[in-house]
C-alpha cells in the first residue's frame, strides 16, 4: 500500500514539471475583447465580422485597421502602434488593396476607379465591409448597378463571366467532396483559389472584351485541375469495386457460417431425439 502511494507520488512529481513547462497562453485580440462588449457603431463591426470570409481566413481587425491587438489599453489604438482607424471613401480602395493588390491595380484603371471621389463606387459599395462574404456573380445585379448607370454593360460582363464561374464553383464542390473523405486537396484548392482570384480580378477592369479574350486561358487552367480531380475520382471508383468485393466475400462467409450452424443445429436436434427414444426403449 505504502509502495503504491510512493509510486503514485513519483508519477505525479514526474508529470507536474511538464505541466508547468507546457503552460501556454492563447493570444487574445484586445479589439474583439473590448468592442464586443460595446453597443452601436463601436460594437456592431465585431458581430458583422463573425462568419465573414475574413474571419474564416483568420483576417482580424488589426489586419486592416492596424494597431496592436495584444495591448489591452487605449495605446493599442495609437498611431505609434500603427493604428489606421476608419478610412475615408477615397481611402478604401488602398485600404482593401493592401492585401488585394491585383484587384486594386485593375480597379484603379477601370471606369469605376477613375470615377473615385466623383461618385464612383469603391470596394464596400458592392462587397460590404465587416460582413464581407465570398464574392459571387450575384454581386452584379440590376438593383445595385442601376444605382449609378444602366445595367446593359454590367449584364454583358456577368454573362461573359458566368460559364467560367460555374466551372469554378463545380470544381470547388468536387474538391470539397474529396476533402471530406480524406484526400489531400490542398494543391488543387490552391490552384482553384489562385485561378478564381485572378478571374474575379478581371471583372474589376469592367472591360467586356478583356473578359472574353482571357476566358479561354482560364478555362484551360481549370481543365488541368478537372483532370486531377477526375484521376482521383477514378481511383476512388476502383477502391469501391475492391471494397464491394471484400464486403460481399465477408457477407458470403457470414451466410455460409450461419447455414453451417443451422445444419449442425439440425444434427444436434436429431441426436437429441434419437437419444430420448433410446432412453424410452
Amino acid at each position, binding site marked *: 500500500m505504502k509502495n503504491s502511494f510512493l509510486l503514485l507520488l513519483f508519477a505525479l512529481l514526474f508529470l507536474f514539471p511538464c505541466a508547468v513547462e507546457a503552460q*501556454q497562453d492563447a493570444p487574445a485580440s484586445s479589439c474583439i475583447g473590448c468592442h464586443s462588449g460595446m453597443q452601436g457603431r463601436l460594437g456592431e463591426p465585431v458581430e458583422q465580422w463573425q462568419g465573414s470570409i475574413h474571419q474564416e481566413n483568420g483576417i482580424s481587425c488589426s489586419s486592416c485597421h492596424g494597431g496592436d491587438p495584444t495591448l489591452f489599453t487605449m495605446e493599442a489604438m495609437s498611431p505609434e502602434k500603427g493604428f489606421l482607424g476608419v478610412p475615408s471613401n477615397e481611402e478604401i480602395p488602398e485600404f482593401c488593396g493592401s492585401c488585394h493588390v491585383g484587384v486594386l491595380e485593375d480597379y484603379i484603371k477601370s471606369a469605376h476607379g477613375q470615377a473615385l471621389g466623383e461618385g464612383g463606387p469603391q470596394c464596400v459599395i458592392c462587397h460590404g465591409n465587416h460582413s464581407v462574404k465570398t464574392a459571387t456573380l450575384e454581386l452584379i445585379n440590376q438593383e445595385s448597378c442601376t444605382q449609378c448607370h444602366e445595367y446593359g454593360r454590367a449584364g454583358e460582363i456577368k454573362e461573359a463571366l458566368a460559364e467560367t464561374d460555374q466551372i469554378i464553383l463545380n470544381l470547388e464542390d468536387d474538391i470539397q467532396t474529396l476533402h471530406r473523405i480524406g484526400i*489531400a486537396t490542398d494543391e488543387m484548392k490552391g490552384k482553384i483559389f489562385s485561378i478564381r482570384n485572378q478571374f474575379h480580378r478581371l471583372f474589376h477592369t469592367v472591360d467586356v472584351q478583356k473578359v472574353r479574350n482571357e476566358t479561354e486561358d482560364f478555362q484551360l487552367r481549370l481543365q488541368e485541375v478537372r483532370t486531377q480531380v477526375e484521376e482521383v475520382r477514378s481511383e476512388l471508383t476502383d477502391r469501391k469495386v475492391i471494397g464491394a468485393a471484400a464486403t460481399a466475400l465477408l457477407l458470403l462467409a457470414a451466410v455460409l*457460417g450461419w447455414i453451417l450452424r443451422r445444419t449442425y443445429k439440425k444434427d444436434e436436434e436429431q441426436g437429441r431425439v434419437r437419444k430420448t427414444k433410446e432412453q424410452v426403449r
Partner: protein
Amino acid sequence: MAINKKIIDYIDLRLGIRDLLQKNLTEYLLPRNINIWYSLGAATIALFAVQFITGIFLLIYYIPNTEQAFASVQAIMNEIPYGWLIRYLHAIGANVVVLVLLLHMLSALFMSAYKRPREFTWLFGFLIFMVTLGMCLTGYLLPWSQLSYWATTVATDTMNAVPLIGEPLLQVLRGGSAVGQYTLGRFFALHVMGLPLIFGLLVSAHLFCVRRIGVSRPPFGPDYRPWEPNDEFQHEEYPDGIPFFPNYTAEEVAVIAFFLALTTGITYFAPWIFLPSDAFTPADPFVTPEHIKPEWYFLASYQILKVFPNEFFGILVQGVIITFLLFLPWIDRTHERRPAKRPIFVALFVLGVVGFVGLTIWGHFS
C-alpha cells in the same frame, strides 16, 4: 504432406498440441441452448485484433508531434500504399468494436450472466469496456485535426468540474493549461502502450474467468433451473452440450464475418459516418469550429453534462451509474436469472437502454 505430419508430430510430442486442441475445441462442450449473443465475445476479440494490427502499421508512419502529426496522418492517407485503408479500418473499426462490446455487455446484463459465481468475469469485462473508451478518447487526439483538438479540449475540460482536485487533475492530464504537445505525448503513450497493456491483462483475466468457471447457461427454455448456492468452486460443465468446434465455431465465424463486413462496408462506402469534416482540417487552437460533438458513444455522457445546470452533478450522476454497474453482481444477489421472472429488472434494463439511446440522439441533435 509427410513432412507436414512429421513437423506436427515433432511439436505434438513436446507440447501436446493435439491434446490441447481436442480438450479446448472438440471436447469443450457448451450449453445446448447457447444463442447467437454468446458469439459477441469472439467478435470483439476479432475486431480488437484488427485494431491491434492496423495500429502497428499506423505506428510506423505516425509522428506524435503537434507540428507533424496531422501531416503524417495526411501522408498515411494519401502517400503510403493502402495507408488510407489501414487508417480507415482503425478509425472505423474503433467505432464498430465499441458497438459490439456494448452489445456483448448488454446481452450479458439481460441474461444476468454477471451473477454468482461470475462476478469477476463481469468486473473484468466492465473494466475492459472502460479501458476501451479510454483508448478511443486518447486515439481521438492523435491525428491532431480540428476535431481531435477541440473534442479533447471539451472532454478534458469536464475535469475542471471535479471539486478540489479538478484543476491539478486537468493539468496532469493535459500537461499544461491548454491541449498541446504535452497532451499529445501523454495521449500517445497511453494509446499505444499504457492502455493496451492494461487491456491485455484485463482480457486475459476475463478469458481466464470464462474458461475456469465455464460458460453460463442461457436462462431460457423449459430445462433451465436457477443456480443452486455452492460453497466450493465448481466448473460448470455441460456433458450433454454441443462441441465448441465445429458446431458453435460456425456461429462465431458468421458473426465475426458479419461485423468485419460492416467495418469494410463503411470503410469503403461511407467513411464520413464516423469522420466529420473537421477530422480533415489541421488543429488550430485559435479557431473554434462551430459544431464540435464527441463520438457517438460519448454523446449520452455529453448530454447528461449539458442537462445538469452544474457540471459537477453531471459527473457525479455518471460516476454513480458507472459504480453501480461495476459492482452490480454484488448488489443484485438473487439467484434468479430468467428475464421472464424478473419484471423489475427487465423494466430497468429497457429504461436504461432507451435512456442511453435517447440521450445519444438528443446529444447528436442538440
